[in-house]
């Protein structure tokens, strides 16, 4: 029911979601990524007690498939009741114990890593007696759900620490599956009813160490604006990458020539806010940034070139499909050990491709027999 990151491979995607599966592959391939574990979708599938499930089915079943769902007020009301209901349910004891054991293993590994590296406070909370800070991430498993996950329908919580808090946020991740916009998304996809089980979600949860970040952002292996694959793009801000990913800030922006690896253009953004861990809130929060930092580039040229190169390596490992790669640079570690890869996914704006749009031919895969008969042997009608 729990898989440590070191044991996760691509084949586990149906259990842990493509996001966590990709991280497992990266870890296995020797990339520097935050350690962690995944609570599998099958372990969570029936975690809700039967009465809660029945109640949810009643709530959602009436609402989601209905044409009447155009009423946003009703949707919001149902969502609020559903989330409250879910967050109030205790996790089954066996599951909670398994998570606690996995979390203890993670904390042990983190302490050992810190001791090994003598890297002091490189990983927040890992040093001293403070509990390890982690990110609790929703990881949707089914294809539609993965789309929903990328579309931000499920939530991620940064800066969680302590097992009680972790268990709490696993439930919150699940509950985020019933948020108003998640329900609306399901309704639009026509998947709302999920058969006789409207409460069902195909969701795994990843728990990953929270790196103590100096700067973070995204690297694209094509220019996301023009689709030009000879250009790589790096965008970044101080602090955690959430300010960049969520579009809350105009980030620093570099373009890098793929062939030479040289920086071609650089633009320092207007970084008025940043994502930072707030001890008071116990979470990563968005805060106003000091003026001098806002106008200063948050990466060195070496870091930009390195990130661009790493992104192309990930792209090559993904069969050349353009990727966007989320990364972070940790405080207190020497470059390039300081560079962590957080996640990556196929770049979707251009890969869906204008050349495919409206084409009569469906985007079928490569079938050697079909190609041989039709294009090589030119069999009429093949």
């Amino acid at each position, binding site marked *: 029911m729990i898989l440590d990151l070191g044991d996760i491979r691509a084949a586990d995607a149906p259990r842990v979601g493509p996001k966590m599966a990709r991280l497992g592959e990266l870890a296995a391939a020797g990339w520097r990524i935050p350690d962690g574990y995944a609570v599998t979708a099958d372990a969570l599938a029936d975690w809700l007690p039967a009465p809660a499930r029945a109640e949810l089915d009643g709530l959602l079943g009436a609402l989601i498939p209905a044409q009447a769902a155009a009423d946003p007020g009703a949707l919001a009301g149902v969502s609020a009741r559903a989330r409250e209901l879910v967050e109030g349910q205790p996790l089954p004891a066996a599951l909670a114990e398994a998570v606690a054991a996995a979390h203890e293993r993670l904390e042990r590994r983190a302490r050992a890593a810190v001791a090994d590296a003598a890297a002091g406070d490189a990983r927040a909370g890992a040093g001293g007696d403070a509990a390890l800070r982690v990110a609790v991430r929703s990881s949707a498993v089914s294809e539609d759900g993965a789309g929903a996950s990328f579309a931000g329908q499920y939530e991620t919580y940064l800066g969680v620490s302590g097992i009680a808090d972790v268990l709490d946020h696993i439930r919150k991740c699940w509950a985020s599956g019933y948020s108003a916009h998640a329900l609306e998304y399901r309704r639009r996809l026509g998947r709302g009813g999920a058969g006789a089980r409207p409460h069902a979600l195909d969701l795994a949860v990843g728990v990953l160490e929270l790196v103590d970040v100096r700067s973070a952002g995204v690297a694209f292996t094509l220019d996301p604006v023009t689709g030009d694959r000879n250009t790589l793009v790096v965008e970044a801000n101080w602090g955690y990458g959430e300010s960049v990913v969520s579009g809350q800030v105009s980030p620093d922006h570099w373009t890098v020539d793929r062939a030479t690896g040289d920086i071609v253009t650089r633009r320092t953004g207007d970084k008025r806010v940043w994502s930072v861990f707030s001890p008071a809130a116990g979470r990563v929060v968005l805060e106003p940034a000091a003026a001098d930092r806002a106008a200063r580039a948050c990466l060195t040229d070496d870091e930009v070139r390195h990130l661009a190169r790493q992104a192309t390596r990930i792209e090559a490992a993904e069969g050349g499909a353009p990727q966007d790669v989320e990364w972070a640079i940790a405080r207190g570690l020497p470059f390039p050990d300081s560079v962590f890869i957080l996640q990556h996914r196929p770049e979707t704006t*251009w890969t869906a*491709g204008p*050349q495919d749009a409206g084409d009569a031919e469906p985007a079928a*895969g*490569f079938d050697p027999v079909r190609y*041989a008969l039709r*294009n*090589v042997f030119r069999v009429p009608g093949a």
Partner: protein
Amino acid sequence: MPSQDEATRVPVDDFVRDELYPGYKQPFGGQPFVAGPVRPFSRADNARYWLRDSLHFSEGMVPASIATLDDAQTWGAQLGAEIVGVPPTRGSVNRLAGTHVYIGTIDVDTEWQVQARAARFGQYVTPILRDFDSYWAMRAGELQAAYDHLDNLDLSAMDPATVWTSLKDAYAFHRRAWFIHFEVMYVLTANYLAFYALAEEIGLAGSAVSGFLAGQQTFYSKTDEELWRLAGRARELEVTGPLLHASPDSMRAQISALPHGAGWLDEFDAFLEVYGQRTEETCRIDTPSWIEDPSAPLYAIGAFLSKPTGFDFFAARQQAIAVRDEQIEAARRSVNGADLARFNEALASNQAANFAWWNEEHNYLIDRRAAIPVRRATLELGARLAADGRIERPEDMFFLFKEELYGLMEGGLTAAGATWKDLAAMIPDRRAYFEDWKRRGPELPTMLGTIPDTVPDPIMIEVFGLSGRFLEALRGGADRGGIAEIRGFPAAKGVVEGVARVITTVADIHLVQPGDVLVCGGTTTEWTPVFGIIAACVCDTGGSLTHAAIVSREYGIPCVVGTALATQTIKTGDRVRVDGRAGTVQILTSGQ
């Protein structure tokens, strides 16, 4: 099983007839073939095209090798095409000009047959491509098991009747091996050509596809590495002198006279034990294996030794792999979205079922080896027959046709009524006929019959290089006086100027000097060592999948194939400029 005495016999006598039906006698020789046996040319053949296959058979065929030829490029190809269900072709068929092999194809010419074959083609091909590793392991295992049996027969301890039985087993195996050859070849070629078509569809050059599939380790690349290693050992053990300068006949004696010579020869013999079960040409009963005559590998080691000392065989291979990966990445960057996904699927399919790899790999199990058990048993039987005074010497067996041998061994007479004595009398004439045609081989036209505008068989295009441009060059080829530039298929990139060395048979390969531009009809596995010393390669025949193209890429030298006319236009000693990216060869100055 009861003995013959005890067996109950129901006589067939009442049913014995000369005719199958009143007025109908079955013609001889038409039965075992799907479409047609090896034949001499007839006038009707003027209506079709026939390509000289100097690629596989440069020196001509002795009578005994005609049966093995007909197992291979005739029967095997026809059965393979039939079973796989290749829609446009029923395989290849052979004609002989004197003793020299020409190949033609049998087009499927009715629409219904094309459709019917297309309908079953996928049923045969799909499961094989889905798990090619397992499939090839099964077939290779079958072949290896046969060699384990046939190679280990102690023929010299057998009585003559058992030797004959062993020869029949070897013949049966030979035929089976060639069915496997063409079955797998057609399946893999389809996969390759499908990738080629996909590449063209998404805006890449189809001709680049074979480059994406280069660099997988084969039995032959391992052989080359071993030869390279032995060259290094020859330096260490100080035996390079004879390898570089001695004649093949005395080389072994000269090496063994050196202080560390015996030690080096032990290593060389251990190499032969693993890699020596191969002959110089396909199907030829009259050519020895490396174990019988190691002058070819000794020459190859000498060739490696004469390479400039800076040359690093492994570095060249690594470089070729890096170039391949760079080409793949560049191709990926030029396509997007669903096209990229299809490209990656096609690449994965072809990496798993890789024609470019198999085209080299299969030779050691089939082309260069399958006839060796036939040769061994033939020579052993020949020794017994010579001892009996039936023939003069064992090698006389090469000048008997398989059908004659069957008739004589099974009933004492050939189908034509000839006795051992009659045939023995014919052998000197047959030998002279073979030698005469062997001499005339280099003068034979590249193509006979009607040269078409295009050929429909994609295998003939990619393997033999019968592109439209090739055919056009052949049609215009009569007047060669003013030709200063020859065009062909750009098989491996790079530009080189050098002195041409025209070689028409692998037997002359030792004439090639380091730095030469090799000009030849086409190359096969046996030519591989020479790629370690030449500056560039130019061939009359060949397409993206031919041996010369594949090996040139691995050795990092420019190569142009499918020129149609190179060996007739370029003379040894000419200074030429080879541009492997443009696919051109310029004759700069005449050597005369």
